[in-house]
């Protein structure tokens, strides 16, 4: 599936960011530089909830929650690419917190059938008054909604979910389940009777996950397959963007270290072995940004390419993140292997990014299916 723009009458008018987007990225970057140094990342990740209300409120004030909510629902009606650009910045700064699940739930609602529920939720999400998350995975590494076992009967949800981001902090959980009509998405209120949450110890302490057990929990229908597919694809693209931001940060740290660390009487960046390891990483990383840009652009502009490019971008970029984090650690030598040095914050985020919403081989399998191979 080749990109539009060659031989099709479409063209390469502008494969770049608008001035508004550049400004948005700068604003978020500056906010994070001022408010989320790694010392704060560490204190949040060592806290009980892993969620910093002040940091979150600051992001909401910048409009992060309202960005992709249509104006008719009280939002800013921006492109999905804008949100992906923010995800890159959050990945770059290793920002702890519930952004991913919240954004996925928001987009599920944006693409849900019209309802009172949609109206009520979206305006609260846009205003930053409510926090939402999504429950996709089921035990047995089930990510595919076609294989989901949780069921809804007479407005009551039963089943088991795992790897639910920030379930305890959320006001609403959007749960992938099925009823007589097939797979769909249902909303459960925090603290609903019959819901039992359990905190899981994760490798990435900047993105907390919990398991959720539902026994006939009252729920409300959000939407069908379209809505949950949009939720999934949003998550894939946001993870791809976060991976790019994190991988780039790992490369930057390795580059800075290579220019500063001296051995054998010279900076280690003078050695070709080091140069080539850095060059290989930079050469693969630099063009990969365009993969998430295109996937984000396709998400709302070229829907026939959306699902495939979301899967492909997440698989590729999260794999590259793993490599960047590990190469960077290796290039740092002993210091990189210490808890005190910050690099493992990104290394651990790469673990989450690779596994959440399905491993890379699984996603490449989906991309192959979607190509009609």
């Amino acid at each position, binding site marked *: 599936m080749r990109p539009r723009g*060659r031989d099709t009458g479409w063209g390469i008018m502008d494969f770049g960011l608008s001035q508004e987007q550049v400004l948005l990225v700068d604003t978020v970057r500056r906010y994070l530089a001022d408010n989320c140094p790694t010392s704060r990342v560490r204190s949040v990740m060592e806290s009980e909830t892993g969620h910093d209300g002040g940091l979150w409120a600051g992001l909401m004030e910048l409009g992060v929650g309202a960005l992709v909510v249509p104006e008719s629902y009280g939002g800013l009606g921006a492109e999905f690419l804008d949100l992906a650009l923010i995800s890159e910045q959050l990945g770059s700064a290793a920002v702890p917190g519930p952004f991913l699940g919240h954004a996925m739930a928001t987009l599920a609602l944006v693409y849900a059938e019209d309802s009172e529920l949609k109206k009520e939720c979206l305006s609260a999400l846009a205003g930053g008054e409510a926090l939402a998350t999504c429950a996709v995975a089921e035990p047995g590494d089930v990510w595919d909604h076609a294989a989901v076992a949780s069921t809804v009967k007479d407005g009551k949800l039963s089943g088991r979910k795992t790897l639910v981001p920030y379930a305890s902090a959320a006001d609403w959980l959007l749960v992938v389940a099925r009823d007589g009509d097939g797979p769909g998405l249902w909303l459960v209120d925090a603290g609903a009777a019959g819901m039992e949450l359990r905190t899981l110890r994760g490798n990435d302490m900047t993105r907390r996950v919990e398991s959720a057990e539902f026994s006939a929990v009252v729920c409300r229908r959000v939407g069908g397959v379209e809505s949950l597919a949009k939720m999934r694809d949003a998550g894939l693209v946001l993870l791809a963007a976060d991976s790019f931001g994190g991988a780039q940060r790992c490369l930057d740290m390795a580059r800075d270290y290579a220019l500063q660390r001296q051995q054998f009487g010279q900076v280690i960046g003078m050695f070709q072995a080091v140069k080539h390891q*850095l060059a290989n990483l930079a050469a693969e990383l630099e063009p990969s940004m365009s993969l998430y840009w295109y996937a984000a652009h396709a998400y709302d502009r070229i829907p026939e390419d959306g699902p495939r490019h979301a899967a492909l971008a997440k698989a590729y970029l999260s794999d590259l993140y793993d490599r960047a984090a590990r190469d960077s650690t290796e290039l740092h030598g002993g210091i990189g292997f210490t808890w005190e040095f910050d690099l493992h914050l990104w290394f651990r985020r790469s673990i989450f990014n690779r596994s959440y919403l399905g491993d890379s081989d699984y996603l490449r*399998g989906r991309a192959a299916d979607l190509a009609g191979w």
Partner: protein
Amino acid sequence: MDLRYSAEYEQFRGELRAFLDKNWTDEDRATLGGEEVLIGSISKPGERVTEFRIAAIEAGYLYRNVPRRWGGGGQPFDPLKSAIIREEFKRVRAPREMVGQGPSMLVFTLLAHGTEEQKERFIRDTLLGRILWCQGYSEPGAGSDLASLRSKAELDGDQWVINGQKTWTSNAAEADWMFALLRSEPDAPKHEGITYMLIDMSTPGIEVRPFRNIVGDSDFSEVFFDNVRVPKDSIVGARGEGWKVSRSTLKYERALIGDTDIARRTFDGMVMMARALERRGKPVIEDPVIRNRLVQLESRLLAAEFHSMRLLTMQARGEEALLAGMVPKLNSTQLSYDLGKAAMDVMGGGGSLAPGEPEAPAMGMFVTAYLWSLGVLIAGGTANIQRNIIAERGLGMPRDPVQKR
């Protein structure tokens, strides 16, 4: 981000299509149109092709960055228009600019450093393929370290006397002229003792010996110089400034950024082949390992394609590409290397059959691609040299002290 052309560019496309309809007929397309030869030998075009090129230059569609005075299209820099021209010419298989080192390198060297007489004599005919060129750079002892070259030129009265050997010379047998780097100041430091020279290949004392490469073709030659005498005014730029003269063409290099077309053709062809071939009773494309590998390769290909769109946008906006502009060469050579290997694996046992063997899958064309991918890795600077460039100029690593010697 907007992946459509604006009205202005669509109008340009419309005018271009009308031009092509009028000047490149269906009959031309059927009898003369074809895939451009990107690697391998060049040859002189026929009269009909030259006639078309002259019309296309006149209309400003070809050689846009060469002034009209010297036979070019003389148009302001506009990478989007260039991209549309490439698309439209490709669509009707109309002849584009001549390939080869004459039009892509020598012309820009002459524009920057040539005398009026050299420009008058060579540029127009080079653009039209009436003069074919070869490049005399590499020597047996001077590859990546090109500036260590030893073939020498000594001034004797009003003639230069040339002795030595060049190698890896493409199209030496077909070329009318060679542009060469020769050592003219033996006592100067290595970069400052080189002169850029134009040599008529029919001069007595030149011997061209083609040799076979690992693909089995004889596209390259060794060229020997035995007391070859050329006029004193054969040099471009000043004596001893040949290194700088040869480097300066970089800034004139055309808007060709890491062309991904060949990789795309190879990839699409490989998918077609994987659908058509069977292994153990099932189409190869249904093998999960092959599918996985194809998507991995496609991801890299798509990244390269989108990246070249991004670079084009940066050019159009007048932004400096920096690191982004340094990576396509390394990536495209690595990608063709890996695509070649994957194609061999798709073929399985059939991969052991030689190109041209009727029983070979796809007539063995992917075997040729596989073998050539090694040449591509080396040509124009080995992959390891590219890595040095990316690390030093792109990432700011200190320069290797060895390179300065």
